[in-house]
């Protein structure tokens, strides 16, 4: 099943500002990272997916439904977490999420139950009965996530969910999103302008720039055969490099580090063996994933 599909999707505002230009992309269920700089067209795309904005031209499908002709059916199965502040300060999280659950069509008692469940899943327990106005940014982000979850959607659209969070808060939010995508069985689209952040939790990445598609692929396809091992020894780097070359390992130097492409687990043994034989003090040996950013940086947008 295709989760999202767009075909030559174009959106211009007032005929002059182009937010999306001829975007054709199709993604499978899972955790999808939608990355691009600010103003790349991410928020416009989300609004079109929700049926809040009509596209200027082109076609779009969400969960097999067309949001331009049947927005209510799409929205019934989608949960949306907006980027900006969206919480009335005087309501408690429990009241707000219950109310929004009812607006999504849940019966009264179900809405109350699912609201406290959703708040529990995002990590808000006793504090859910306090007024939202006194919450920290991290807690507010969690409430926004809970309201998107309350009606048990099949797809979550999260617009910059880590906005305004400190590093620990970011990690917690990303872990939560990963859990929703893997354990809850709900597909997630995470919008972010920070590629390094979403690549950790996504299995598909869609990168857009200036409203155009840069690249869309599974993260595994982007990073296979690009993993390298970084070896650092306190002394004898030259000897080790010579020894590894003798073992037919294509070694490259990066400052004090030796980089060896990781073919399979045997590569570890070979390197450890060589270090032991030369009796060198091993400082570190770790696997380095090629940042997906490097893959994007290598491609010129205009060539895509």
């Amino acid at each position, binding site marked *: 099943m295709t989760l999202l599909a767009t075909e030559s999707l174009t959106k211009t505002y007032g005929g002059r500002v182009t937010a999306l230009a001829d975007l054709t992309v199709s993604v499978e269920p899972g955790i999808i990272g939608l990355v691009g700089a600010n103003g790349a067209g991410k928020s416009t795309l989300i609004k079109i997916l*929700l049926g*809040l904005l009509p596209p200027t031209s082109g076609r779009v499908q969400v969960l097999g439904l067309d949001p331009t002709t049947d927005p*209510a059916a799409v929205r*019934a199965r989608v949960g949306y977490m907006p980027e900006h502040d969206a919480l*009335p300060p005087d309501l408690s999280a429990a009241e707000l999420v219950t109310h929004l659950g009812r607006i999504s069509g849940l019966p009264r008692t179900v809405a109350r139950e699912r609201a406290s469940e959703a708040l529990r899943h995002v990590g808000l327990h006793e504090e859910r009965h306090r007024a939202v106005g006194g919450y920290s940014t991290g807690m507010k982000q969690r409430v926004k996530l809970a309201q998107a979850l309350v009606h048990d959607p099949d797809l979550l659209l999260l617009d910059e969910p880590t906005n305004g969070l400190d590093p620990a808060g970011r990690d917690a939010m990303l872990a939560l999103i990963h859990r929703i995508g893997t354990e809850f069985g709900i597909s997630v689209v995470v919008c972010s302008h920070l590629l390094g952040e979403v690549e950790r939790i996504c299995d598909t990445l869609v990168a857009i720039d200036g409203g155009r598609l840069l690249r869309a692929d599974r993260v595994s396809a982007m990073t296979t055969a690009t993993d390298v091992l970084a070896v650092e020894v306190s002394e004898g780097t030259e000897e080790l490099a010579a020894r590894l070359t003798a073992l037919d390992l294509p070694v490259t130097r990066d400052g004090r580090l030796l980089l060896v492409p990781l073919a399979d687990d045997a590569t570890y043994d070979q390197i450890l063996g060589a270090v032991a034989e030369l009796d060198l003090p091993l400082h570190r040996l770790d696997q380095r994933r090629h940042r997906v950013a490097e893959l994007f940086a290598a491609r010129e947008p205009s060539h895509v």
Partner: protein
Amino acid sequence: MSDATGVIHDIGYQRYTGPRLGRRQVFGALYLHGVRTVFGLGRSAKAKIFPWLVVSVVTVVAAGVTAVRSQIGEVVMTYAQFADAMSWLVIFFAAVAAPELVSRDLRSGVLPLYFSRPLPRGDYALSKLLALVTALWLLLGGPQLVMFLGAAFTTNRGVRGVWDELLDLLPGLLYAGLWAVVFASIALLVASLTGKRAFAAGGIVAVFLMTTPVVGVLSILPSQTINQLAFVASPPTLVGGVGNWALGDRLTQGRGGMPIGDFGPVYAVAAVLLVAGCVALLLLRYRKVAAR
């Protein structure tokens, strides 16, 4: 992680397979939420002060009128006149309630959370409008019911007296409904334009205040036609004009009333157009808000 003194079993995420309600029930939920908001129910104690102060004032007035009537037998105010007499209180009530209903949502940015749900954007505005109409109507109709009960229990003409009283009450309630519809649609439209509640409240009162002198000017111009049409210019006098025409003696008690000549139907049409215009602009406003 630690030993099992009080293990909480994480039952994990549960999918929901139960019923999902349709548009009508969702509209109803939002509407009921709106009515409760106006009266401060389910909200802080501070939010309850003003609405219940107004409610108690109108109730006390109604009780007073009823008491006077049962003691000295004189009808101080008819049901319809009661609505007229309370018009300024209704304006202030609407000026506080309408911003509570819509300006607060605009300011907190909660609207994207509504419009990303199956709810059609027009339903949001209409449910809020209906909630405000209901609240204003209850505000005027509730005390009328008090007056009716007082009169019904003290009548000395038996069932027939109660029946006559009921026939007087029903037009009064309809007239209260007209007040509610006209005031609610104007107040909600003004409030939907700004997220600042104080501005919204000021704007609503201003609409009613600023138009009153216009009526004054028009009614002293040297043209009888213009004089008779002058009351169209301000919402409270417009409603009064419609009442004069439709209810006649029930409103005026033979004391003359407004000099609107034969233009009664014009007033009725003007009232309908005013409400229709406000509702259309309100829906247009939310079309724009939803797409943001």
